């Protein structure tokens, strides 16, 4: 699904990634752990083709770095659900519209098509009751859940999350991680970039440790994990007491505590999870949600 082959990325004189090679299979869960400026965000930006490697090859499905035009780049991004630390929601649109925009971008405009999909996505993240609110009217946790709903509404085969809990207090962070894990268990591959060891432990899966642009792959808990814990004065909202609040006790959303004040809709009945499956392949010029693995346009 994803492969990095001897990828180096420089920003001028600064070396962001240094000869990094790794791969990730379909349906896998991988956490990229590293301190600030270690190269995590660069790695995720390379995956979405927001930037190009200085050398080496990045492959996502059948899309290879190097020669993607704007059309194919847009097509690639429609195949991936991305969750950002700062949510990146459209401020002048309601929760419903923020989620629906991902469907519109994929070429779905009819209400009969859009409304059920958006409602399902909002139900999955427990935000259906807030569908008519603007992002400014939501808590940070709810905003991130809205962003996750937007990321999953097209049923992508791959979810990228760049520090998804970075702006959240611990309780909301737990809920978001539980949500991401549930989405992963339903079939989507999950790639999370984080500076926090507790997030990596909560997510589980395979762990890649990045330090100064170099990669160390480990399995299971990293003995160096605490080296990446943010200091108490790091500026994160509501840092965990003592810096070691266990997030590893995350449960799936179906069993999450409904009494969480920040997530009033968490207890809302959640419909049976829809299978995460790649949609019908389309031509590069047509809107729609292409198959990550069969699009011919990305290969070079």
């Amino acid at each position, binding site marked *: 699904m994803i492969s990095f082959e001897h990828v180096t990325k420089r920003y001028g004189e600064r070396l962001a990634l240094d000869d990094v090679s790794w791969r990730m299979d379909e349906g896998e869960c991988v956490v990229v752990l590293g301190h600030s400026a270690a190269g995590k965000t660069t790695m995720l930006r390379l995956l979405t083709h927001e930037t190009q490697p200085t050398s080496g090859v990045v492959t996502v499905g059948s899309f290879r770095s190097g020669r993607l035009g*704007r059309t194919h780049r*847009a*097509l690639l*991004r429609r195949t991936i659900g991305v969750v950002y630390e700062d949510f990146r929601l459209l401020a002048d649109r309601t929760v419903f519209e923020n989620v629906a925009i*991902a469907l519109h971008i994929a070429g779905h405009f009819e209400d009969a098509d859009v409304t059920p999909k958006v409602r399902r996505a909002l139900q999955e993240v427990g935000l259906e009751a807030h569908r008519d609110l603007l992002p400014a009217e939501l808590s940070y946790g709810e905003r991130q859940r809205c962003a996750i709903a937007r990321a999953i509404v097209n049923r992508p085969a791959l979810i990228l999350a760049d520090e998804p809990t970075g702006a959240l207090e611990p309780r909301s962070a737990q809920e978001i991680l539980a949500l991401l894990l549930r989405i992963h268990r339903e079939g989507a591959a999950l790639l999370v970039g984080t500076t926090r060891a507790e997030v990596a432990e909560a997510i589980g899966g395979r762990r890649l440790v990045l330090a100064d642009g170099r990669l160390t792959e480990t399995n299971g808990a990293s003995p160096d994990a605490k080296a990446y814990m943010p200091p108490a004065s790091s500026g994160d909202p509501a840092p965990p007491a003592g810096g070691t609040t266990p997030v590893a006790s995350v449960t799936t959303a179906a069993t999450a505590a409904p009494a969480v004040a920040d997530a009033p809709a968490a207890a809302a009945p959640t419909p049976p999870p829809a299978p995460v499956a790649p949609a019908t392949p389309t031509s590069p010029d047509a*809107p729609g949600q292409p198959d990550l693995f069969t699009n011919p346009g990305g290969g070079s």
Partner: protein
Amino acid sequence: MHPFHWNEAWRLFRAHRGLALTSVVSLTAALTLCGLFLVLDHNVRQALRALGDRREMIVYLKDGVRESERTVLEDKLRQYFGEPTYVSPKEAWARFSEQIADRELLQGVDTNPLPASYHIRLKPELLSYTAMQQSAEQIEGFDEVDAVRFGGEYVRQLDELSGGVRLATWAIGAIVVFAIVLVLYNTLRLTVLARRSQVEILLRLGASDRFIATPYVIEAMLQTSIAALVALLAAFMLRQTVGMRLHDLSFLPWTSAVGFVVAAVAVSWAAAQAALARILRTIGS
């Protein structure tokens, strides 16, 4: 184009009313100038056409041309040059006499010195100076013809005036097209930059340039439509005001008015497409 894009255009319009209004006012100014010149051009053309209708060619016949020869000549003139009207020496003298007030002078002339002639109302395609010159040379080549007159200098000046007005209209048109492109480019650039963060989010979600650009293009076309209609209204009102003094001044025919609006909107469409392609490339990857 889906209604979604129209809703998005309306959302843009509401969010940036000030910019939209500035754009409409600027476009209206440029299009009003163009509209006024079109009205002027239309009226000059009408006047020239009226003058052109009076253009005729006089073909003087040699003395002693027989009736049968004259009939053959008349057929040739009708076939190739226009509608000939025969003026006999007697009729020519009568017309001349009407124009001369001094009766004693006329009585001093013993014999009628005027030749027979044909007055030809030329075909429309022969009304330019060059065509008339060529026609005169060809007609002079006929055996029965003594001389041909058509007021060459007068015709040349009319043609030059007509060409000058046409050139000025094209020049004004080009300036207005440039103004439309400039106004729309800068307005769109400001609007897109004001929404830069949102455009970047859409790009990261996989939106194509077309998806992002369509609402802006719709908005630009709507602004230009409004500006063109206001410009036509302004030109019409001015015509009404000036028309009080100049009774022959007419407004554009409705086909030209519709064409004016359609052309302005088409230019705005092309300008907006080009501008957005350029702007979106500068915004991001």
